[in-house]
C-alpha cells in the first residue's frame, strides 16, 4: 500500500517537473500590447555560430546573429544595394571632398556623441584600430580584408575624423567599413583577433548586446541603451534559438513560439498555407549563386598544382558536354519548385549583374556528340569508356566524384538530379558529400577543394556589393592554392591572362560601368573555358510572424539586419 502511494507520488512528481521544465524553456513573451514597443522576439537558426565576429569566420550563420550586435559600421548597404551612412555623418564622396581627386585619400567623419555598448565613446581611433586589425596578415580574418593592405596610414586629427591614405585607388572604399568597427579598448591585439574574448562577447555599436549564451540552445540579446539612433531599438530582447531539425523549426513557428525563421525548408506556397494567419514566408533574391566547379588538374595525386591536367575534365569538350547534359529548366522549376532563380554566370545580381545566356543549353544529343568526339565510347553498363581520349588512358571509365556539403537538402536534391542527367549521356557521377567544415575548410585541414582532391564540386557562393575581393581570389591565375599560398581560392586551377587583365581593371577603376564591363568580360571567359557551370541563385527565404512589423528584407542583409526597426505586438 505504502509503495503504491509512493509510486504514484513519484510518477506525479516526474510528470509535473516535465511540464514545469518545458515552460521554463519557453521564451518570456511580452505581455504588453502597448505600441510603445518592448517585447521579446525569438529567432530560429539551424546551427550555432561559433563566434560573433563576422570577420573571423566564413560561415554564413555567423552574420545572422552578429548583425544584431557587432556589425554596425560606418555605413550599411540598404535593400536597394546602396550605401547609407550609419556611424558616419555622411558618405565620403568626390563631391563633398571626402574622397580626394586623386582617389588616394578618404576622410571619414563620425556622428557626434557616439558610444559603444559599454558606454565608452566611439572615436576615430577605433577606425584606425579596425584598419590595424584587418590589414594584419596574422589576424586570422577570413573575410572583409580586401583593400585594407592598400591603406598605408590612418591619421586621426580629432576624435571624430579619420583620414585614410591609400597607396593606389581602391573602388570598394565604402564597403570596407560596412561590416562593423572594432573598439580598441575592449578587443585585443590586432595579430590575435582569432583568439579575442571579444569574439564571444562583443562590445559593438549594434542595437543589441549579448546577455546570455547557452551553447547548443540559444543566444540572448538585450537592448543596447547606448544605440546611436534615439528611441531604437523598439524591442527589449532577441533570443536566437538553435534548432537543427527543419520540422521542429516549422512547429515552433506554427505554435507562435518563434517569430523569425531563417531559411524555412518548405517552399513559400506550402509555408504560407501551413501558417495561414500566423506567419508568412518572404522571399528576396539572394546572393547565393550555385555552380558546379570543375577541377582542371589531376586530382588525388598529392600535388595541388595545375599540372598534370585532369584525365577527364582536362578536355574542354567533356566540360561542354556536361554543361549540355543538365536540364536547367527542370532543375529550377520542377526539382526546386521555383524557389531559386536561374543563373548563367558568376555575376547574377547587383550592379555588376551580367545578362548572359546559358553558354551550353540543355541538349542531350549535342552532349553525346561531344563526348563521342572527345574519344569516349559508350560502355556496356551505360557509362562511357575512354578510347582515344585526350588525357585519359584507354579503358578508363568516365566516372567522377561529385562533392557537396551535407545538411542542406536542396543541394542534395540538386546533386541527385544532376547525377541522373549525367547518367543519361554516359557520365557516372558519384556523390560524395562532406560536412560544411570539411568542404569549406582550410588548406591545412586538407579540405578537398584546397588541395585539389576533387573532380566536381557543387556549392553556392555569395558576393557583397563589393565583389572584387572574392572574384580576384577565385579567378586570378596567381590565386591557386598551394603550400606557399594556402588561402588561394582558384580551386579549379584555371589560368587565363585575359581574366587577369580584367581583374586588374575592375580592382582599380572607380567608374562602375567600366568595372561592370570588366566583370562581364570575366563572365564570358568563364562561360568559354568552363571552369564552372552555373545553375541557379537561391532566393533567401525568411519566415516572419504576422505580428512582427517594421522589418525589411534585403538581398544584401541577413535575418537580423535592421532589427532596430522591428516592432512586435503580441
Amino acid at each position: 500500500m505504502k509503495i503504491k502511494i509512493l509510486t504514484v507520488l513519484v510518477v506525479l512528481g516526474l510528470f509535473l517537473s516535465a511540464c514545469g521544465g518545458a515552460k521554463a524553456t519557453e521564451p518570456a513573451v511580452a505581455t504588453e500590447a502597448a505600441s510603445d514597443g518592448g517585447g521579446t522576439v525569438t529567432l530560429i537558426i539551424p546551427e550555432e555560430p561559433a563566434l560573433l565576429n563576422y570577420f573571423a569566420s566564413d560561415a554564413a550563420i555567423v552574420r545572422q546573429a552578429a548583425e544584431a550586435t557587432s556589425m554596425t559600421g560606418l555605413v550599411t548597404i540598404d535593400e536597394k544595394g546602396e550605401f547609407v551612412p550609419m556611424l558616419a555623418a555622411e558618405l565620403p564622396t568626390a563631391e563633398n571632398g571626402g574622397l580626394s581627386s586623386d582617389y588616394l585619400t578618404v576622410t571619414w567623419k563620425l556622428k557626434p556623441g557616439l558610444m559603444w555598448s559599454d558606454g565608452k565613446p566611439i572615436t576615430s581611433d577605433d577606425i584606425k584600430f579596425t584598419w590595424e586589425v584587418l590589414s594584419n596578415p596574422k589576424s586570422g580574418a577570413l573575410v572583409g580584408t580586401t583593400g585594407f593592405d592598400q591603406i598605408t596610414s590612418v591619421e586621426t586629427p580629432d576624435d571624430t575624423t579619420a583620414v585614410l591614405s591609400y597607396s593606389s585607388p581602391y573602388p570598394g572604399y565604402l564597403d570596407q567599413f560596412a561590416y562593423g568597427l572594432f573598439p580598441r579598448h575592449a578587443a585585443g591585439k590586432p595579430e590575435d583577433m582569432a583568439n579575442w574574448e571579444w569574439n564571444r562577447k562583443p562590445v559593438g555599436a549594434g542595437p543589441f548586446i549579448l546577455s546570455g549564451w547557452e551553447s547548443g540552445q540559444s543566444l540572448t540579446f538585450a537592448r543596447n541603451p547606448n544605440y546611436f539612433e534615439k528611441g531604437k531599438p523598439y524591442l527589449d530582447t532577441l533570443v536566437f534559438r538553435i534548432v537543427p531539425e527543419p520540422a521542429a523549426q516549422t512547429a515552433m513557428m506554427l505554435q507562435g513560439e518563434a517569430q523569425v525563421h531563417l531559411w524555412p525548408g518548405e517552399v513559400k506556397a506550402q509555408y504560407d498555407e501551413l501558417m495561414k494567419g500566423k506567419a508568412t514566408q518572404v522571399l528576396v533574391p539572394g546572393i547565393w549563386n550555385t555552380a558546379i566547379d570543375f577541377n582542371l588538374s589531376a586530382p588525388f595525386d598529392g600535388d595541388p598544382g595545375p599540372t598534370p591536367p585532369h584525365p577527364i575534365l582536362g578536355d574542354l569538350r567533356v566540360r561542354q558536354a556536361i554543361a549540355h547534359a543538365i536540364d536547367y529548366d527542370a532543375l529550377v522549376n520542377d526539382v526546386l519548385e521555383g524557389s531559386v532563380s536561374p543563373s548563367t554566370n558568376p555575376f547574377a545580381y547587383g550592379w555588376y549583374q551580367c545578362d548572359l545566356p546559358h553558354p551550353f543549353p540543355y541538349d542531350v544529343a549535342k552532349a553525346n556528340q561531344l563526348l563521342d568526339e572527345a574519344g569516349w565510347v559508350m560502355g556496356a553498363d551505360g557509362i562511357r569508356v575512354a578510347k582515344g581520349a585526350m588525357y585519359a588512358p584507354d579503358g578508363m571509365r568516365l566516372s567522377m566524384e561529385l562533392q557537396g556539403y551535407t545538411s542542406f537538402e536542396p543541394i542534395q536534391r540538386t546533386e541527385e538530379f544532376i547525377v541522373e542527367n549525367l547518367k543519361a549521356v554516359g557520365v557516372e557521377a558519384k556523390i560524395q558529400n562532406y560536412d560544411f567544415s570539411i568542404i569549406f575548410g582550410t588548406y591545412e585541414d586538407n579540405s578537398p577543394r584546397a588541395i585539389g582532391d576533387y573532380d566536381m564540386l557543387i556549392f553556392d557562393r555569395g558576393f557583397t556589393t563589393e565583389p572584387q575581393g572574392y572574384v580576384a581570389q577565385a579567378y586570378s591565375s596567381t590565386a591557386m592554392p598551394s603550400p606557399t599560398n594556402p588561402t588561394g581560392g582558384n580551386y579549379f586551377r584555371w589560368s587565363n591572362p585575359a581574366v587577369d587583365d580584367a581583374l586588374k581593371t575592375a580592382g582599380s577603376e572607380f567608374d562602375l560601368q567600366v568595372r561592370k564591363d570588366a566583370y562581364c568580360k570575366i563572365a564570358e571567359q568563364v562561360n568559354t573555358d568552363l571552369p564552372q557551370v552555373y545553375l541557379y541563385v537561391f532566393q533567401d527565404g525568411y519566415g516572419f510572424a504576422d505580428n512582427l512589423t517594421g522589418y525589411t528584407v534585403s538581398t544584401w542583409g541577413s535575418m537580423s539586419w535592421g532589427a532596430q526597426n522591428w516592432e512586435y505586438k503580441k
Partner: protein
Amino acid sequence: MTEITSAIPQEQNMARLIIKRFFKHRLAGFAIATIVLLILFSAFAFLSPYEATQQEPTNSFQKPDAQHWFGTDELGRDIFTRILYGGRVSLTVGLFSTFLSIALGVVVGSLSGYFGGWLDSILMRITDAFLTFPTIFVLIILGAFLREQPIPWLKNSVLVVIIIIATLSWTWPARLVRGLFLVLREREFVSASRAMGGSDLRIITLHILPNCIGPILVSGTLQMASAIITESGLSYLGFGVQPPTPTWGSILSTAQTHVFRAPWLAVYPGFMIFITVMAINYIGDGLRDAFDPYVIHTGK
C-alpha cells in the same frame, strides 16, 4: 511385481532442444518470419517496375496510390522501391556489423576473463580507452585518414561502414563476456576439465563459451538495432552510403524537411526500422528463453 516403467530420459540433441524451446515463444517465431520476409523483399527488389534512382521531378510528393504504393519522394522516385533497396544496405550493415562486433568482443572478453592477471588489465584498459573516445572525434579523425588515401571511393564502401560501427561497439560484448567468464571459470566443470588435461582453448570454446551464448545473443540483438540507425548518421560525415543510394535512415533524414507536406515520406522508412528493431528484440527474447536453463518452459 510392477515394472518401474519410468522411461529412461531420451538423450536429446542440445541444439534441437534449444530450437524447440525457442519456437515455444510464439512472438519470437513470428519475428523470425518477419526478418526472413524483409530479407526476401530486399533481395528481390529488382522485381519492382521502378528503379531506385529513377526520377520524375514533375511527379514529386505524390500520395500513395495504385501506381506508387508508398507514394513518391521529392524527386518523384517510387518510395516502395527505394525502401526495398534500402533494406539491403540497412539489413546488411545491421547484421554484419553486429556479427563483427560480437566476434571481436567475445575474443577480447573471453581471453581477458579467463586468464586474468596482466592480460586482463591490458585488454580492459584498451577497452576503456575505446569507451572514452568521443565517437564524433574518432569518426572525424578516421574520415580525415580515409580521405587522404589515394582510393577516393574507399570511404563509401559498405565494408568500411560495417568496420566502423563494429569498432565503436565491440566494447559492450567484451565487457559482458569478461564478466561471465570471471564467474564461470570458477565452476566445477572447468576444474574437472582441467584435471582431465583439457587445454585452455578447449575449456574456453567448448565448455565456458556455450554457457554465455544467451546474454551474448541478447546484447547482439540490441546492437543490431542501434547499428541500423548509426549507419544513417555516418553519412553526415561523408562516410557510408551516399545519395542517391537509398537506405532507410537516409530516406528518413531527407523526409524531415518535408514532414509537414508529405508525412508518408517519413512514415514508411520509420515503420520499416521499427518493425525490424521490434522483430530483433523479440528474437532476442526468444533466444534468451531458449538458452537459459533456469527458465521454466510451460509449454505455452
